């Protein structure tokens, strides 16, 4: 029989983890980066308690990385369906602008609800264009990327809108259980998304639509609706990220907030093991990918790399992580070293 005789062998299990595991390699990449920091910037792992909460570089990474993590969570679902969302940065700007403008005029809850609602509606528009209009995702969301930024700037008149609303400021600056409140938000969104995709059939539907849309439709899955849902959800995530970004600097900077963050989010998702072509996705992988980017950025600050040439080491890390993920590269290296050992 063709039963996998090796399945019960722990060594084989470990091996198969190395061969297939999508989570393993981003984690290894992150660990290596941490190790590098441990050697070259001793303050990296320094943590202390200040005013009852943790304080240190690692905490910063979690806090500053929260925006990309949130975007990446939404983006993962979209990429799973074979799409992409370029508009997230602009949606962040819209959400931040609306909240900053309204928080003084209406109640805090209403302002938050309004801005998140708007971001979600914008996502729905993306979804309708893509799911029902059959427009290529990259173009459909590019439209909102350009126009959304304009809208956000129109709302704020090109000014930076500052505010001092305590509840709003808490979102991006507060602490909960000793950690930045943003960590709680990310954890909540992550857990919610994990539950929503894995404890229901939504995850399965996303993967089927992304892997073979025609076949999924033939099974009776409403692929168009699935798409509208994921773009809406990504819009919502972008809205939350926008609130965090705005709250964090106590100002709505609608012309700059979230600029180029869509690329970071896509990067995080792809590094996390979700292929851009759709299908299987890993939310945790994306979050790790986002942490990887933020760690990389902080590493550059810590090493004092001249900002204009910082992209070079960044490029090297990206390609290195990529190579680690490649099964072919690993076998190549193994055989290379294997041969050497035989030779000596």
């Amino acid at each position, binding site marked *: 029989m063709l039963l*996998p005789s090796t399945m019960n062998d722990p060594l084989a299990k470990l091996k198969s983890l190395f*061969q297939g595991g999508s989570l393993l390699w981003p984690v290894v990449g992150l660990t290596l980066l941490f190790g590098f920091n441990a050697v070259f910037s001793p303050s990296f792992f320094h943590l202390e308690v200040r005013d009852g909460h943790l304080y240190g570089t690692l905490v910063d990474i979690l806090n500053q990385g929260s925006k990309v993590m949130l975007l990446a969570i939404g983006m993962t679902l979209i990429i799973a369906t074979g799409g992409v969302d370029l508009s997230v940065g602009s949606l962040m700007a819209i959400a931040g602008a609306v909240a900053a403008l309204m928080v003084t005029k209406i109640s805090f809850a209403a302002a938050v609800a309004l801005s998140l609602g708007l971001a979600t509606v914008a996502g729905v528009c993306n979804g309708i264009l893509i799911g029902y209009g059959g427009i290529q995702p990259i173009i459909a969301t590019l439209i909102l990327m350009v126009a959304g930024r304009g809208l956000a700037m129109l709302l704020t008149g090109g000014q930076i809108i500052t505010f001092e609303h305590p509840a709003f400021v808490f979102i991006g600056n507060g602490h909960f259980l000793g950690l930045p409140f943003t960590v709680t938000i990310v954890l909540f969104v992550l857990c919610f998304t994990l539950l929503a995709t894995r404890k229901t059939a939504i995850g399965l539907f996303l993967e*089927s639509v992304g892997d*073979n849309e025609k*076949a999924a439709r*033939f*099974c*009776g899955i409403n692929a168009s609706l699935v798409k509208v849902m994921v773009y809406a959800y990504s819009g919502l995530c972008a809205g939350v990220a926008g609130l965090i970004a705005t709250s964090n600097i106590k100002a709505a900077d609608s012309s700059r907030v979230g600029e180029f963050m869509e690329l970071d989010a896509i990067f995080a998702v792809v590094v996390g093991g979700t292929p851009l072509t759709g299908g299987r996705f890993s939310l945790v992988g994306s979050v790790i990918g986002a942490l990887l980017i933020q760690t990389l950025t902080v590493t550059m600050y810590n090493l004092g790399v001249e900002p204009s040439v910082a992209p070079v080491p960044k490029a090297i890390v990206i390609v290195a992580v990529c190579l680690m993920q490649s099964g072919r590269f690993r076998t190549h290296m193994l055989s290379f070293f294997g041969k050497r050992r035989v030779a000596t």
Partner: protein
Amino acid sequence: MSASVLRAQNVVKAFQGVKALDGAGLDLREAEIHALMGENGAGKSTLIKVLTGVHKPDAGGIEMAGRAISPGSTREAEAAGISTVYQEVNLIPTLSIADNILLGRQPRTFGLLRKKALKKRAEAALARLGLKLDVGQTVGSCSMAVQQMVAIARALDIQAKVLILDEPTSSLDEREVEFLFGIMRKLRDEGMAILFVTHFLDQVYAVSDRITVLRNGKLVGEYLAADLPRLKLIGAMLGREFEEMEHLKEETAHSAPARKVFLETVNLSKRGLMNPVSLSIAEGEVLGLAGLLGSGRTEIAKMLFGIAVPDKGEIRIQGKQATIKSARQAVQHGLAFCSEDRKSEGLIPHLSVRENLILAMQASRGPLRLLPRKEQDRLAEHYIRALNIKTPNAEALIQNLSGGNQQKVLLARWLSMQPKLIILDEPTRGIDVGAKAEIEKLVHSLRAQGMSVLFISSDMEEIVRTCQRVAVLRDRKKIGELSGADIQVNRIMNVIAQHDE
């Protein structure tokens, strides 16, 4: 005896620890047609892929004309004189028929394509197979059968010493098959060595000179076709005795009391796709659709299932008019459709066997009510056993299964739904003898429980065995209907032929 052209010995190939080939071998000689037989998952396609450089064998050797070769890619194999049609039609759906036939061998001057010559040569290649098509249309828009013919035309266009055909006839009708066999015989007589895989025993005996049988990746034996009786061949493939399927027919013929009509179409038509057609299917009835290629059988299935929306006529379900504008609505009406094109319309390649299997059922439950994992596992286990699906476990990716086993999973997907009407378009495409019998039995038992079946097949024997009524189609028109004892292969062929005059 003629000289050996392509020989493989003791080939071993494992995928992630699972041995697909474990001592397989083959000896292909000059000027012969050689059938490679074995049940689904026996390793036929894998052996072919090893021979043609797609997979690298873990052990074993390949010789061509006495010299050891180890092709690293299909290109190298082609250069060495091996031309292949792989099992899953491997064409570029977005390119035209002409481009597909001549990809890599286009006529050119100064490195630039000669588009007129390209078209001419492609047309000529198809004409050899008796086909006249617009070679400018994209392959993706063609029916399965046409795609299969295009793949064959491509292989024939390559100047080769060895021709390998992996299930080339699985969705061809008899006329096309005869055409192909004619060409194969001619090539053999010219000295070519042809390796041929099929699950149709009749076809094996019709063309092959010798037969090699594989079982569980091992070489069972090599026989002269003339010396090997059918039952012995089946025995060699399955490794056990096998009862023929003839008795099914009796059961079918007797159990046809008049029952309530489940689904009815009234002059259903779509411009350019289907002429008005009226059909009715009773509860607990198997209605067959017979016809030659391009007669419009798939179109009827697609119109019923809301994939091609008809522009005239109506569909009535249990007497009430039904609007079916999407697959989802069709499923809601209790319909199920197992497509003939498993690669593009069936498989979700990167999902597991289990997930593929439960997908339709889950879709009908909606996204929120997840089928409990226990239930999923139970269903998967059940069908893996019932249909003898060869897979390491239910969590294996479906894309790693052999073609026939993939087909079984897709069938299980729809059978498990317990639909009121199941439309099966070439359901046994690529399925081995043993499993075919299992599936036919399953269809019968479901029918007995009151399910209706619309059965489309190019295998007339199969239609005769399974159907209680047969609608005969031609040129996108229904031209006749047979029932009960009238359902016989020659009767059906007569109806089609009569219409010719």
